[in-house]
């Protein structure tokens, strides 16, 4: 059975091992269905090892959307590989601020 790309758990989104063009559509659907319940969201990337441009774009869109509604978005468990991708895109720090653990 295929692994669910994302699970909703309170206000934390736990992302799976990969967040690429192959996962973003399913992830988008799950998040969109529950987004109206959330204001502040934590994205947990502890298990995430692979991210591509589409995955980054999804995280950015989620972040901007929550912030435009007065909410907040932060990340947790960002691996150094994923962090290097954020650095590559030179994203503003508030877009991928890691939550203090």
């Amino acid at each position, binding site marked *: 059975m295929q692994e669910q790309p994302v699970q909703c758990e309170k206000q934390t989104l736990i992302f799976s091992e990969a967040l690429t*063009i192959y996962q*973003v*559509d399913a*992830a*988008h659907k799950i*998040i*969109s269905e529950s*987004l109206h319940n959330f204001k502040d969201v934590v994205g947990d990337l502890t298990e995430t090892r692979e991210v*591509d*441009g*589409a995955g980054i*774009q*999804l995280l*950015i*869109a*989620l972040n*901007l*959307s*929550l912030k*435009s509604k007065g909410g907040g978005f932060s990340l947790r468990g960002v691996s150094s590989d994923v962090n290097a*991708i954020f650095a*590559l*895109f*030179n*994203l503003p720090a508030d877009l991928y601020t890691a939550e203090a653990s």
Partner: protein
Amino acid sequence: MIDPLDTFKIEAREHLERLESVLLELESRPDDRELIDTAFRAMHTIKGAGGMFGFHDLTNFTHHLETALDKVRNGSLFINAELIGIFLDAGDHIGKLLNNTQFDAHQKITSEQLLNRLYAVVPHSNPEQSEFAAEDHAAPEMEKLKALRIRFKPDAATFQNGFDTMPILRELKSLGDCIVTTHMAELPDFGQFDPEQSYLRWDLILATNQPLANVEDVFLFVAQDWQISIEAVDLLDSDEISDRLGELLVSRGILNSADLEQALDDKPEIGRLLADKGLVSNSDINAALAEQKLTRELKQKSSGDATDPTIRVPASRLDNLMNLVGELVIVQARLNQVASREQNDDIISIAEELDLLTTQMRDQTFSIRMLPIGSTFGRFRRLVRDLSLELNKQIQLETLGAETELDKMVIDKLADPLVHLIRNSIDHGIESAEERLASGKPASGKITLSAEHANSQVVIKIIDDGKGLDLRRIREKAVERKLILADSEMSDEDIQLLIFEPGFSTAAIVSDVSGRGVGMDVVKRSIQELGGKIFIHTEAGKGTEFTVQLPMTLAIIEGLMVSVGGENYVLPLSSVEECIELQESDHLLHSRKRIVEVRGEQIPFLYLREWFDTEGQRPAIEQVVVTHIGSDRFGFCVDEVVGQYQTVIKRLGKLYENAVGYSGATILGDGSVAIILDPHTLMEAAGREQSHLRRNQTSFMRINP
């Protein structure tokens, strides 16, 4: 015109000098990336240029050295004293190959020996494969650093088509310094967002020395579908306005000039203002700011690196130019005299204007010939390194004032005397490590070579912390050589000066280092020929200091013309302090006392009228020209001070080479000759005559001009 082959050889030698200099620096700073890069570039350029002229043997040889330096550069090989020694010897060998580009059998053997030494140190290389089998093609040439403004927007279906922006960004970043701005303004709300479509766009400013084609190749597979723009940013544009934020946004096509001007009328910070007005997005402002930051850094760097375009001309042409300027100065003086005599306003006006131009032309011509003395320091570092190894002494050379400028001709002629003085310090001055330790000194000796400008002169010092001159031994030797009588009464200073006597040598064993038939007398004469002087100060057990004073140029000086009994003389203006009127009542005519009191200070002076046995009536009021000679002040009493005079120095010739007190002559506007006086030696000669210490009659010979 200089032959291209000659140009190659001249430039290759300059690269070799640079290579030697950085290799010696690397001994103390082996991790300095800039030095390693410079050494690599020097070798790379010699190799590439040699290949262009078809010198394949030279190219092959340098290829191995370049490869080894590349290993040092990429960290797979660490530079050490052995490797530096090999590179230095290889540099010497390349110098010889440049003299004989036919590469004879002897040179081939030397090349093989050097490469064997190299490959004994360089790991993972197979000399059998690599010797004389270098690739013919040189490494791709890097271009000058440039800034590129790269903007791209992937097509919406790019992810679905299997493309991604990340590899593109990674590749662009690998080409140089890159600042990325990701524009997110076109992202729809998460609800309306199609995650498989691409909405983002990017702005990059890339500082790179890669060819433009390499940058364009990054987009090779997406060029058809993506919106891509690559523009070069003009780094040569020195207009301050052009890189201001508002102008950058206009040049990026994000904003039009009218909107910018309207917004600027409100005066607050332009970025915030434009964003608040909704004219541009924050990410556009960030991208423009990134470009501003990077291009300003590059402009600053390139202006720091920038050197005016240069042309190479034979030194003889410069000498000719200098001679012509000298003649022009003389004609100018003549014109000034005529203008003054005729009292014609038009002629006076033209003469004044021409005088200004002549002075500017003289100064410009001088400046063309001026070179930093540091250009010769490299060979002294090498000398100290090689000789200390040969003599098994530990010696450090400290150089100060490398930027001090001196006439090229003086620098060229000065090199040999300085080499000899440094050789002497190494051979006779600095003790062996054991001797030094036994006398409580550090094992490593130190030689300081310094240069500085002082009173329109260049002062060069060679200071060692060795054992100092052995005055007792010098005296004994001088008696042995019949230079002085055994019972001669001599001060320590006079004994020191004996080392400059022809043929004098105190070394118990004439070594291969300083005993090469060139004595200190030749050093002194060479410096005197340059219009300079040499002084010694020594202290037993502490070291010796040689001070060489040189005029900055050998051609033209600013002088003060004076007259005595109708004859004109010139004193160097740089040493003149003031002129004092001397009335008959100020001194006792028949007194031998030659002292004038100036503001409480008693200054000795010399009557030039007496010195030159000038006949005729003394004027009622004479002038004492007070000069400074080091810390001393000394006056010259003359009939009249004529005024400031641009003095073209002409040598007096062999007949007068032993005449002390004269540094040359000059031709005046009316064609007559004026002697240029040397205040320092005149003062010394007058002082010695006064105290009846005439040891060398010819040294104090007077001449009547």
